[in-house]
């Protein structure tokens, strides 16, 4: 699937139990663009990604991915959209502990009532594993893997549905500096090969090279981007 453009307009979100409020007046990403969002801890980077993926609903404003206004979809439709069109890489990777590497990669197909698990999907999983150098991990459980290996499994899972948008929330947070560079390079390569739009949240300045744009969130909250 080709990359999708992302538009955020007048976004306001507030957690009910906190005084914190996230405001993003405007953010535009063209299809296939790769951007990094930075900022200090607690400034709302993860919240922005969760709003962009439809995990959270804004108090006001809109999030549009391609032709779909995600923020106005009901919960079930948002989940369905996320599963089909958005690849997510989490800081803690969020692998299911009792599934092996292959089943974790194929997880979107196991839980979806829309996506069909075909031989082509299995072949794609093999190919992704081969490209990321984790073929030997397909039969292993996450407990037997290193952090870097789990990260690559999580990346393969994010790409298996051929999403138009990849959202990566500090995916290198638990890796050492050498592996951080390797992981981000892999993310760039895979997103580029898939033609997907990429947003990565990080607070590591050393990882910003290679992105089309770098947007500090505090600036994003006050200015249009």
């Amino acid at each position: 699937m080709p990359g999708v453009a992302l538009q955020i307009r007048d976004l306001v979100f507030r957690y009910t139990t906190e005084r914190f409020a996230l405001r993003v007046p405007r953010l535009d990403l063209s299809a296939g663009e790769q951007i990094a969002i930075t900022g200090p801890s607690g400034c709302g980077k993860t919240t922005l990604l969760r709003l962009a993926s439809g995990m959270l609903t804004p108090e006001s404003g809109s999030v549009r991915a391609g032709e779909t206004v995600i923020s106005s979809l009901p919960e079930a439709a948002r989940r369905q959209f996320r599963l089909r069109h958005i690849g997510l890489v989490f800081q803690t990777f969020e692998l299911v502990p009792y599934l092996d590497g292959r089943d974790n990669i194929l997880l979107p197909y196991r839980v979806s009532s829309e996506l069909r698990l075909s031989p082509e999907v299995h072949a794609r999983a093999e190919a992704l594993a081969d490209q990321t150098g984790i073929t030997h991990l397909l039969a292993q459980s996450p407990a037997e893997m290193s952090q870097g290996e789990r990260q690559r499994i999580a990346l393969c899972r994010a790409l298996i549905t051929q999403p138009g948008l990849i959202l990566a929330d500090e995916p290198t947070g638990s890796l050492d500096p050498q592996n951080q560079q390797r992981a981000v390079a892999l993310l760039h390569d895979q997103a580029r090969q898939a033609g997907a739009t990429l947003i990565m949240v990080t607070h590591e300045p050393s990882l910003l090279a290679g992105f089309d744009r770098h947007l500090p969130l505090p600036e994003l909250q006050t200015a249009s981007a």
Partner: protein
Amino acid sequence: MNGNLAGIFYLGSRHLARQRGRVVLLVAALTLSLFLPLAITVGVNAVEKHLRARSVSTPLLLGAPGSQLELVFNALYFNKPSVPVLPFGVSREIARETGATVIPIHAKFQARGFRIVGTSLDYFRFRGLAVAEGNLMARLGDCVIGSGVAKRLGLKAGDRIVSTPEQMFDIAGVYPLRMRITGVLRPAGTADDQAVFCDVKTAWVIEGIAHGHQEANQQASSAVLEADGNHIALDSSIYEFQEVTPENIGSFHFHGDQSEFPLTAAIVIAPDAKTETILMGRYQPGRAKAWMHRPGVAMEELFDTVFRVRDFVVAALAVVGVCALLIMGLVFALSNRLRADEFRYLANLGAPAATIRGLVGFEAAFVIATSAILATAGTLVLLVAVPRLLVHFAV
């Protein structure tokens, strides 16, 4: 949006495989909680049905004063040998005065672990027993064996079986009698399959009331201890026959008054209801020298007690089952709490809520369904097996 059933099953089964030890324990606990009350109910009902059939088919039972239930178990199921004995004369008196058919039962002794039942040929007609091989007993010392005895001991018509002495060191007590097997009964699925039947007189021989020995006048004078007219006392060198043969049958004789010879019970088949009522009145338990009972009523009282105990046990097991369910609920709740992160991951990925709910309930559903299937299967097996076992063991 619907959940993905195949996915729920796949992921659920993967999780169960990881937790198989716990799942096996939960299934075992719930299966037992469900199965035990069902098994007890099924087992007791099957035994009751089986025992009731034999008791209600026996109209009246005469016995010495004593326990009604012990008498019924002695005369109907041959498994209570130590009951007070009834004088044979009482049964003859009833037959003579009322025209009732009175079938003597003498069920005290054993042969190789099987009850020896001294009776008359009327017993076989009354119970509808027929020989599968050979004939019914024809003379003193003959016996007919039940199908279970024949199968267990590998005996057939023409073989011999020896009665078991009751006390090894009591040389004046029950004498081992070698009986000739004249026939093997067809399987009846009752206690008759596990018994050795002989004429009541043969049972008296075993008891030592009758015996056969060498003629006294053939003995050397040294064996004669005392002789005066018709009475002669001999020492222990005289040979007492242990088997009745055509050659020695004439020497077998009884000592004492036959009307006082012991029976453990007598089955009474009155010619009509009026006679039956008269007999019940005349031999009312607690008021006569012999007591008349209706076995069906006696067993009914036993069943009432058994059912009360059964209900209590089933109720207790039900409480244990409810406790097991509550503990299981707690285990599932704790398990799902431990899996909260996993369910959150799935929701983050975009898994439909129905799929996540399916996964939350999968383990409980699997354990409950598997336990229910196992308990039902076990109960169905019992429903088929218990009646067969009762017939096999001829209770």
